[in-house]
């Protein structure tokens, strides 16, 4: 019994570490006006490219230094988290809803519903995702809503493929046949018997997708196609930091670390939750 317990404990540590970072980042984003030490938009050319607090020439109150316009980096990261989390939750949920529903139907019913959904997915996957996103935002116009819609439109196939495969293997199980014999209709069986068994996969994917949405939003910000250029976003800060990498590395490195930790935490949190959700693994 020692080994499964060890696995569970490691899974727990992963869940708590990832969840802790996400909670911290989320709270910081929600309470940004209370927490941020400076106004993220206030420029001060006297204070441009200040280094982080432990280096020579830093100023108190500007913990992670300032960017090339003298704006406080930490405050910009905290405010940038707002956009990142809104996009993560909204885009991932939308992609999850559409993709899981279609995947569940295709996998469980098979036959022509499956053929239609699978062909659409095949066509969808042929588009290079980031270019597709840029194209979509160019069409919809920039702004938070169009970024969210674009990410959902690109990434629903990720859910669809995985959930279809899961639903397919569940649909062949004897308990599905038993429910049929008991007199239940197909939709009832799909929701009552199949859905709970694919739920862990949905949860894991949803969390992973939130991380991916954060990355895609950062990429769109990086190419200046996300929300208005005034509001700080992680991708936007990275783009600015790239320009002064030789004079002030921190402007690039801190948003990258933030992005990295957040995306990693989303995927690890999802895996941890999946194991929690799965009655056999529990």
């Amino acid at each position, binding site marked *: 019994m020692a080994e499964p317990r060890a696995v569970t404990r490691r899974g727990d540590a992963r869940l708590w570490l990832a969840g802790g970072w996400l909670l911290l980042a989320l709270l910081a984003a929600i309470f940004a006006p209370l927490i941020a030490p400076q106004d993220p938009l206030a420029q001060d050319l006297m204070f441009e490219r200040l280094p982080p607090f432990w280096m020579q020439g830093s100023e108190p109150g500007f913990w992670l230094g300032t960017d090339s316009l003298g704006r406080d980096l930490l405050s910009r990261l905290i405010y940038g988290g707002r956009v990142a989390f809104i996009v993560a939750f909204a885009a991932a949920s939308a992609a999850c809803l559409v993709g899981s529903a279609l995947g569940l139907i295709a996998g469980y019913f098979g036959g022509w519903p499956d053929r239609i959904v699978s062909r659409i997915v095949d066509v969808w996957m042929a588009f290079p995702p980031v270019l597709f996103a840029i194209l979509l935002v160019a069409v919809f116009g920039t702004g938070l809503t169009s970024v969210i819609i674009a990410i959902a439109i690109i990434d629903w196939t990720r859910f669809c493929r995985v959930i279809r495969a899961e639903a397919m293997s569940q649909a062949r*199980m*004897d*308990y599905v*046949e*038993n*429910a*049929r*014999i*008991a*007199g*239940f*209709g197909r939709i*009832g069986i799909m929701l*009552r*018997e199949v859905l*709970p*068994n694919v*739920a862990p996969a949905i949860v894991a994917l949803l969390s992973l997708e939130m991380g991916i949405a954060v990355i895609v939003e950062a990429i769109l910000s990086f190419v200046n196609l996300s929300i208005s250029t005034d509001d700080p976003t992680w991708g936007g800060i990275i783009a600015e930091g790239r320009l002064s990498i030789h004079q002030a590395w921190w402007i690039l490195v801190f948003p990258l670390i933030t992005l990295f930790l957040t995306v990693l935490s989303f995927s690890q949190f999802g895996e941890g939750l999946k194991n929690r959700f*799965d*009655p*056999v693994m529990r």
Partner: protein
Amino acid sequence: MSVPCLAISNLSATLANGVRVLRSVSLAVEPGVVTALVGESGAGKSMIGKAVLGVLPPSVRIVEGNIALEGIDLGELKPKARRVLVGERAALIPQDPLTALNPSRRIGPQMTDRLVHILGWAGDKADRRVRQLLDEVQIRDPDRVMQSYPHELSGGMRQRVLIAAAFAAEPRLIVADEPTTALDVTVQKQILRLIAELQKEHGTAILFVTHDLGVVAKISQNVSVLYAGKVVEQADTPSLFENPQHAYTRALMAATPRYTDPLASLKPVDETVLAGLASEIAAADRDWVAP
């Protein structure tokens, strides 16, 4: 004579490529009687059970004949009406207790589902009923079992749960599809005894699908012997064992291992018997025109 609980007449089924898997099968299960269906694997025993319960795989098509449940011809019902009728009056004890329960749902709700949603019982009444049935299948702690997930129970326990679930709705007919095959020998015996007890108590008719003549002798009153989708012999159990008519039945009996002389008695079905069966089946297929 009363209406048989299950009457299958002249049932033929083919695969998509036209190969016959059931060859004009007729059999009847009288109310409250256990009828066994024996045959080797691949003979189509389980197929008959699935046909009755309406869960044939999509590749198998019924081409002629009909199945009547308590006098109602299932072929004439609309799919939904058929499903509900079968759900109310028939049940299955499945072969593999490991996959027959949903791994992510607790036992209790899985067992009450049919009572509540198909038969329209109130939740607490269904709960009481299931608890009582779990008691009847000699599960000591019904409340704990109902709170459990399937993986927390042993194979024998799960099969007891499935038996209780099958009897819970008081069906007229239970199809038992090799219910002891996936269990180890000591548990097999208990489960068999349990099914026999509950059958007597509830007066349920059972179509008992098995490959094991030993099981047939213990539990059934009537037997149909199936070979390659064709019924080769039908009789009541005592006379089948005393006086088997068909060469294949005799060969099957000879092939059953005996504890007293395990190696000597273990002989496969004789070549000449198989040749006879092959020509019998060829003759049946020659006369048969797909409708």
